[in-house]
């Protein structure tokens, strides 16, 4: 849908992917064998958000954290329309990381997976997390 945002400003911040100005990237970051985020030093709440003022659950101090790349599928879908620079079909899943937060990942192969299917974050594509069905 690359024509969106071109030739006409939209009130919604479209980002550079659809012709708008670049914005700070808020997506979770994959760093080697870990997904980066924060963890509360008091209640241990894990989140993929960074630079928080305090723990949003107990208001304790947070510290940077590294979360395992493996987890379970909370839900998944195959999107059949173009979005940004993405061409359909593409698969998306919410993945509950084993020791961490729920993150949105693109699937390496578009598919609707059974709830709880094991996934592994194997890389990124243009900043998006990419998940692959874990080899048993």
């Amino acid at each position: 849908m690359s024509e969106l945002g071109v030739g006409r400003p939209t009130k919604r911040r479209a980002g550079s992917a659809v012709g708008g100005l670049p914005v700070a990237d808020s997506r979770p970051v994959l760093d080697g064998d870990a997904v980066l985020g924060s963890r509360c030093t008091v209640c241990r709440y894990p989140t993929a958000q960074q630079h928080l003022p305090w723990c949003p659950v107990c208001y304790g101090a947070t510290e940077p954290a590294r979360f395992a790349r493996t987890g379970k599928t909370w839900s998944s879908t195959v999107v059949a329309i173009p979005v940004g620079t993405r061409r359909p079909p593409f698969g998306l899943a919410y993945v509950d990381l084993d020791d961490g937060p729920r993150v949105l990942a693109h699937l390496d192969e578009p598919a609707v997976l059974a709830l709880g299917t094991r996934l592994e974050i194997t890389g990124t594509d243009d900043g998006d997390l990419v998940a692959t069905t874990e080899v048993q």
Partner: protein
Amino acid sequence: MNQAMLWGVGTSSYGRFPDQRVESLAWTAVAEAVQDAGIRPDEIDAIIVGSVFGPPGVATRIQRGLGIPSVPMWTVENACASGTAAYHEAVEAVRHGRFKCVLVLGVDQMSTLFSGAIVPEATDPEGAASLPLPGLYALQAQRYVGEFGVTPEQLAAIAVKNKTNGMDNPRAQLRDTVPTVQEVLDSRMIAEPLTFLQCCPTSDGAGAAIVGGDRGDRSDLRIEASAMVSGALWDQRSEDVWGFASVARAAEKAFDQAGRTPQEIDVLEVHDAFTIGEIITLEALGIAPRGKGAELAPSGHTTRDGAQPVNPSGGLLSRGHPLGATGMAQLAEIAWQLRGQAGPRQVARHRVGLVETMGGGAAGMDGNACVVTILSTQS
């Protein structure tokens, strides 16, 4: 606390009107609401506007045609619940005696901003990752289908029901034909399992209401409850699908205020931006037990001649979805239903009505905001 009443409602038509001014859409709705309330414009002592994509200063641009100078006026944005969030502020202000007569307005003109689906918000993690709103609802739906075994036909039945109702709504955007369940399922896939006919269109439109105190007019509707909640964290700890908990929190407050049970509601307008939304919402409102919401439409419970009609206007699926205006359109429909003015859409029992608007999309929250209001006739 003063009793807040709904004095009058009005709306524009809903559709794609890129050649109309935003103000024109708003003025149409305001004029109808003022006439419906039977007031002079200078009785209005505050203006609250709900809009998501309106131009900066949209309220003032509308005000310059109204001749209501110097009154307190502000704009609120709460995603799809912007219109009813503005309404909620008006109700609270009247309850607390701050104002005697408030003009509430919801307006958005989407056709001048987007040529198709809404562009996801690039500053949001999910938006940056190309998750469109139908994709978010699709993830909700797939989780729900996996947990409760809802069938594609049950999902499609929501679209058939609401599009059937919408045929009798002259202000609705989509009212050409009523699809069959099979035609809904055969329409182009947007995000599995949601097909094109299970998604509301983006639209242009406005809705207005006059909220005031009890002036002894028997045609005014009693606002038994108005509750608004913002979002809470929605994450790996959540036992509910996205969006459920915010509706449930608002519903609990509203039923508590009104001193009513969900079974006492005669007619409802709820947020059906996507078919799964109506199912989840009716469960969160307590109209159906958890996991049973999908049975309501196929069983006839929520059809217009059913025990508890839901979206007799055709809902967002027929009317379309001008974000800021949607809640006000829902409110107008419930007002017309309760007063017996809904013409061919009129439901049989219409003493107590409920409006629910849920706005969401910010990643990691169970919604941006949700408003639930309960109104009744004075009989």
